[in-house]
């Protein structure tokens, strides 16, 4: 049993729902108790989906447990098939139905339906949402694409003109998947490569069945699509493009890889750089203030990895924390963190992430909606880079993360929460101006001003960064005290680095056997810790 306040991922059957909701002409029948239908609102509210997700639930109650839940499930399948007329069926159980062991797959098979049935075994007490999505896509691809022999696929491939690919991974409730797909499609098509199918977003069973007919596969989100792509590679010999086009350099590498797979010249896609403003914006003198901004990165594996590279190499930030809740991506994340002199934080424990952020004292958090709340509480700027998603992550405008336009969007959205260059200097110089408070949020984020006044949650105590609590590292027996002038001087330091300055100065005083911190000590420590 694990104490959980907030979770990064839902249960695995929600991952299966995301795949089902991405597809056309497919229905998912879920053996689940009353109440599990709450998951519909993720689609209809967060994503503003205009139709019900294609899911029917058996919604059993206590009285059914005493009689016959299996019959209830079979009836639900029969009715769903009659009402929605799907061309393929996914069947499975949610966490509670898994315990009653009714075997949804077997029950559905026993109905002798004329459509393919894909039974899903998603162990709810071991696995989570992304795994559920990945497994569902894999099972569906295996079952449907497996109906075509490698020979037949090769024949069909040869009969069509020019190179073709499948784009695997974009799905419902993915972070900007909708717009990433459009961006990636435009890059691929600029190369004269035909998109045979996109899966699961927008695909029907027919399209999935013919996945083997493309020359190669593009894997956009490895957590979600890699197992399916690996199976396709084994069965049909389709190579995988695994570079994820997030950021300027990665997009260039992606284009080179796609061009190589397709055997075409990369120039036409590279020519789309005429739309790319990001490198110049980052190189312009105005962006000097971004240098060495301390950023903490946490998200799914794909986005956290990409963000670390972009932050370091394309924005000129200093990455002070890197982590992910995607255990499946732990290895590359650990390597990336090590290259940055960090230890990767691989956890799905929100409280652990919060503690790591507090300890790292970043100036900017690149995280999920959960880190956005941590950031709000700590008074730190935050840009969202990854799922779990929120209604705000489905903007009305076109806002991809991938490709050249994605790089532009990332530049804008990451610098938006920051205090701009000149404003930052003025704050440093005139921090005691009563109308120009150090503790105020950046001027363009007016609605979030006066961070110090943000009410803290009940009974937890007002532990926000702007508050000056002595650091716990300093024990009572070897304590140092602050002279009043030094304390006043400390308050002139911008709030987002004040806590770190306090801690460093106290450490410096302890290391040098100083009982009291004076203004001198403060500046000695500053010089000591400067690089």
């Amino acid at each position: 049993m694990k104490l959980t306040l907030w979770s990064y991922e839902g249960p695995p059957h929600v991952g299966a729902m995301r795949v089902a909701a991405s597809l056309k002409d497919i229905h998912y029948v879920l053996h689940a108790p009353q109440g599990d239908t709450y998951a519909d609102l993720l689609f209809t509210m967060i994503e503003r989906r205009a139709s019900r997700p294609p899911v029917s639930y058996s919604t059993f109650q206590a009285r059914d447990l005493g009689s016959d839940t299996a019959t209830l499930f079979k009836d639900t399948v029969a009715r769903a098939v009659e009402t929605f007329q799907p061309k393929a069926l996914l069947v499975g159980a949610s966490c509670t139905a898994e315990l009653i062991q009714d075997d949804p797959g077997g029950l559905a098979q026993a109905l002798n339906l004329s459509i393919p049935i894909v039974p899903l075994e998603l162990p709810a007490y071991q696995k989570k949402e992304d795994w559920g999505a990945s497994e569902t896509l894999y099972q569906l691809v295996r079952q449907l694409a497996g109906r075509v022999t490698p020979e037949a696929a090769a024949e069909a491939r040869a009969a069509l003109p020019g190179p073709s690919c499948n784009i695997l991974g974009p799905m419902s409730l993915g972070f900007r998947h909708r717009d990433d797909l459009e961006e990636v499609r435009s890059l691929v098509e600029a190369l004269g490569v035909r998109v045979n199918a996109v899966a699961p977003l927008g695909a029907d069973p027919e399209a999935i069945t013919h996945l083997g007919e493309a020359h190669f596969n593009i894997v956009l989100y490895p957590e979600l699509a890699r197992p399916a792509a690996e199976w396709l590679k084994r069965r049909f010999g389709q190579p995988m493009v695994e570079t994820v086009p997030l950021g300027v350099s990665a997009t260039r590498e992606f284009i080179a890889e796609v061009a190589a797979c397709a055997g075409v010249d990369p120039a036409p896609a590279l020519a789309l750089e005429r739309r790319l403003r990001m490198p110049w914006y980052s190189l312009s003198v105005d962006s000097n203030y971004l240098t060495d901004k301390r950023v903490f990165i946490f998200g799914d594996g794909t986005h956290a990895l990409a963000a670390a590279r972009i932050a370091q190499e394309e924005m000129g930030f200093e990455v002070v924390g890197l982590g992910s809740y995607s255990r499946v991506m732990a290895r590359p994340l650990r390597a990336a963190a090590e290259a940055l002199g960090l230890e990767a934080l691989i956890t799905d424990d929100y409280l652990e992430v919060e503690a790591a952020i507090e300890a790292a004292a970043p100036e900017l958090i690149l995280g999920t909606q959960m880190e956005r709340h941590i950031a709000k509480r700590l008074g730190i700027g935050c840009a969202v880079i990854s799922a779990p998603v929120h209604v705000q992550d489905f903007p009305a405008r076109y806002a991809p993360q991938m490709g050249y336009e994605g790089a532009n969007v990332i530049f804008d959205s990451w610098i938006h929460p920051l205090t701009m260059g000149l404003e930052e200097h003025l704050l440093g110089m005139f921090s005691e101006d009563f109308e120009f408070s150090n503790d105020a949020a950046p001027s363009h984020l007016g609605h979030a001003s006066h961070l110090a006044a943000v009410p803290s949650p009940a009974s937890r105590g007002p532990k926000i960064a702007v508050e000056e609590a002595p650091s716990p590292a300093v024990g009572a027996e070897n304590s140092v005290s602050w002279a009043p002038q030094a304390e006043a001087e400390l308050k002139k330091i911008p709030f987002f680095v004040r806590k770190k300055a306090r801690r460093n100065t106290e450490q410096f005083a302890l290391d040098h056997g100083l009982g009291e911190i004076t203004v001198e000590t403060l500046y000695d420590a500053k010089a000591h810790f400067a690089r």
Partner: protein
Amino acid sequence: MNSHGAAPLIVRERGQREVFCGLTGIVWLHRKIQDAFFLVVGSRTCAHLLQSAAGVMIFAEPRFATAIIDERDLAGLADVHESLNEVVDQLLARRPNLRTLFLVGSCPSEVIKLDLDRAAERLGQRHGPGLRVLNYSGSGIETTFTEGEDRALTALVPAMPNRSAAGEAPDFLIVGALADVVEDQFRRLFAGLGIERVAFFPGNRSDALPTIGPDTRIVLAQPFLSATLKALEDRGGRHLPAPFPLGAEGTTAWLRAIASEAGVDAARFEAVTAAGRARAQKAMSRSRETLAGRQVFFFPDSQLELPLARFLSEELGMTLTEVGTPYVHRAIIDPELDRLPADLRVVEGQDVDAQLARVRAVQPDLTVCGLGLANPLEAEGLRTKWAIELVFTPIQGYEQAGDLAELFARPLRRKARLEALA
């Protein structure tokens, strides 16, 4: 009895239910009872539901959490109690000032027959007497949405002190979580009526529960509290049936039932309630223009459907088509049914696909439904009102009557204003 001389017919329906489970009640209860914590013993699905229903992290650290059962726990029951101990220790280390801990059962904990009665007793001995440990089930197999509050309050009833002498127990116990602002308004009205010994249950503190005794009249402020009512009756309380305090008329009827029982004379009742009643009428008048003569259809959600239907038909002139509700408890809801048209179709239970077919056939002007159905119906051209907002918003009493009417009128006014976009 209504003018037709008969109560509406109630049709029972079974099929797929598109409703929340009882765990959802934690979203408001954890704010209402400020020294309590709700620990769901369940699965990742339970945690995900609470997070989704709570609108994702409104409060930086909520007073609820989930002890997520994993594979190791399923291996053997002895393990489960041990790991629950560890989770509770961890929780109490973070929150040493709790006075009540609710262990909340879920579908998985019910199915594996995890004995939360025993767990609560054991944890109570371990952490008492400063901490009271109670348990109830908010599972979907046993509870529908607001029934979670009913179960939570039922669990609290045994902790209510017995009145030891006549005159110590309140004359009136108002039962059901109300917004603090609504509670304060009612307190002022009771004071004006000269009714002094009134207690509200639940209040903000679980360690200062009201007493209960044979003189106590139980007045429900929410219609979904049948188990709580029974538990309070078992403690000697007497139920005072009344319509629910929604709108000017509903609030007046509810207050009048209490005032009559307390022997308040008609002149005083009139004097104390006239201003609020007039304000409520005034506040509702704009919405009445929008809503009068329009048709409304209810999907089942919170058991508030029948009182709301009464409000919309009696006070705002709307035409009722179908009113779906998860359960009908006649002893509680009869005063509302009596005021509803005899030809009304009331559907208890749900078969969501059949109901969707009916709403499409009726094409009402306004459909009250859950979040999973609202946008799809909007996309089909129907106007909808999210039912959950009626549970998460202060709607009771005179001063909220205008706001309540506005909740229904807004979707229609909005449609009219955005005609160019259609």
